[in-house]
């Protein structure tokens, strides 16, 4: 099953490679991983999406906890949470396609961030399935580049992950 694990890490140079190394050394799956500093400069927040049997997920969380740079960890899969991912897509657009692509972007509440004579850059946010659907709706041949942030997630309400 797919799990979203949120972590607060010490903002140390080696922290990210410890997490990445753990996953490769123990042959766990990583679907996506995103990490950036938080409001507290001493910590960064990582959102990691993985999948596996219950036993494997249990080992993953225990092994992550064991890393000295991991301050706190929460598997938020079972909690009510908000999940978002941001995607930037560069598409080739010419002639009538310009209107068509704009219309599709509107349907997905996408924003066109950059326009040239032959290309658009479109920003779309949502969960993974929505982003997949957007890509599916475009003419595949017109897609020049796709950049996705990986999932970001946060638990609703009072519960959550704080220092």
């Amino acid at each position, binding site marked *: 099953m797919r799990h979203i694990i949120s972590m607060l890490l010490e903002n140390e140079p*080696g922290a990210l*490679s410890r997490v990445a*190394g753990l996953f490769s050394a123990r042959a766990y799956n990583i679907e996506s991983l995103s990490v950036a500093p938080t409001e507290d400069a001493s910590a960064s927040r990582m959102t990691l999406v993985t999948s596996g049997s219950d036993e494997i997920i249990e080992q993953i969380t225990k*092994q992550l906890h*064991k890393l000295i740079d*991991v301050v706190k960890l929460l598997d938020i899969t079972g909690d009510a949470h908000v999940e978002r991912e941001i995607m930037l897509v560069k598409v080739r657009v010419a002639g009538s396609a310009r209107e068509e692509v704009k219309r599709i972007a509107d349907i997905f509440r996408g924003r066109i961030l950059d326009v040239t004579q032959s290309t658009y850059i479109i920003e779309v946010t949502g969960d993974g399935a929505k982003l997949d659907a957007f890509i599916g709706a475009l003419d595949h041949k017109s897609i020049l580049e796709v950049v996705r942030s990986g999932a970001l997630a946060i638990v609703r309400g009072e519960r959550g992950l704080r220092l």
Partner: protein
Amino acid sequence: MQFLKDEGVEYIFGYPGGAVLHIYDEIYSQDDVKHILVRHEQGATHMADGYARATGKPGVVLVTSGPGATNAVTGIATAHMDSVPMVVITGQVPTHAIGSDAFQEVDCVGITRPCVKHNFLVKDVHDLAETLKKAFYVATTGRPGPVVVDIPKDVTAPNVRIPYEYPASVTMRSYNPVVRGHPRQMKKALDLILSAKRPMIYTGGGVVLDNASDELVRFTRTLGYPITNTLMGLGAYPGTDPQFVGMLGMHGTYEANMAMHNCDVLIGIGARFDDRVVGEVSKFCPHARIVHIDIDPASISKTVKVQVPIVGSVLNVLREINGMLEGTNRRPDAQALSEWWDRINRWKSVDCLSYDHSDTLIKPQSVLQKLHEVTGGDAYVTSDVGQHQMWAAQFYPFDKPRRWINSGGLGTMGFGLPAALGVQLAYPDAQVACVTGEGSIIMCIQELSTAKQYDLPIKVINLNNRYLGMVRQWQEFMYENRESHSYLDSLPDFAALAESFGHVGMKIENPGDVDGALREAFAMKDRLVFMDFITDPAENVYPMMMAGKGQNEMVLSAHSRQRELA
């Protein structure tokens, strides 16, 4: 250096080089911390490791950057697999040169990351004392392990002088090992333990690491239950005690493995359900509900699902449970326990460690039995890896913890000799024996030179079967005797080799000479004696649990098989 002294470090095991010359210059001008000059950095790590296993104090290593650091990796990984507290200081190229492929630069933090408990790169001299303090704290608390501190040369430059203060304590928000067991879990465990009809206590290295033997003995004696130890746990419970049924696992005793297979409640204490113990997971302890006490949550339910996990230190948890046991008048079912012991004694009568005796060939097992006799069962015994290691574990019962020192998790050939030197440094008056094979000893033979320099009178018991015996045994059992590269050709004359290092060498070829040679060697209290025993090359380690098999499906020696059938 001032920090190491303040931390109470007695010995550093090291080897100099460019990146650590500033540190060596400081070593030169003090004599509080004694430096032991090894002959290879692998030797330094194993020596520090042996010292740590024997004393419980962290072993400290100092090596240079680049090849110094890479040579140390095997020893670091060895300590990591067996949870041995160690602090390894590696030199690094100056901070401004990091990343430039400078002379003798390797990414030491990167290379060692998967085989340390934690590692640090110190970029600023102001962080040095605090980082070292953290390193010792992390290495020695919770589940112990090696910590590497990589120090660029400019950080130790003598022209940078800063005020130094010993950091008396350390707190880390991201590292707080749980040591107290959860009361409700302990109560549940006690209920299950007392309800057992066919109980089994299975303990491992965690009991040794936590110095919890007394509590374990109290627990086991109060209950009257059978107990087995892993290879790493030997000595935590007296090996000559009647409740002890021997080691379990691949080369464990028939009775220990049969009792495991048939028990209804298994009490795992500071042991990690390693594959050499479990065998085929689906066949492991099929009738048992399991209690598992371990300080590392990741050790619990890793391979085998357990019903009552208790996260905490063995010492604390056993003390609490013992208190609860003594405070209640509930006792196990005496009738069931006595029937259970009857079954175990029947398994014992198979005499699974019996072997053929010979008048012409030295049997390796007999050398170890003699060693036990000659040393009064009270020696520190280190070993290398192979058949000799298993025979030492089987034929030298340890009555005290920290006496049996071997590489279990990584199985590092070359460990035994340097480890023995580390033990002898810690306990100069103790009898220290290194049980080895002609394959393993060659891997760190250079440390005979270190032994000479520091007058370390260990006794080397080389069980020389002219084979990588453990490999040959597997080839015999699993590859139809095709002895691919397991015969060691062109071996040196070990006695002469030892003599050339300045030690006493002996070659023993007749069974009748074993006893005399051992007595003569151990009587030479101030000399290292290298005893080269020419042993039966065809001997195998029995019993053996083969891959994919359950604990009740061991391969027995011919003798024992007959008794099993009878």
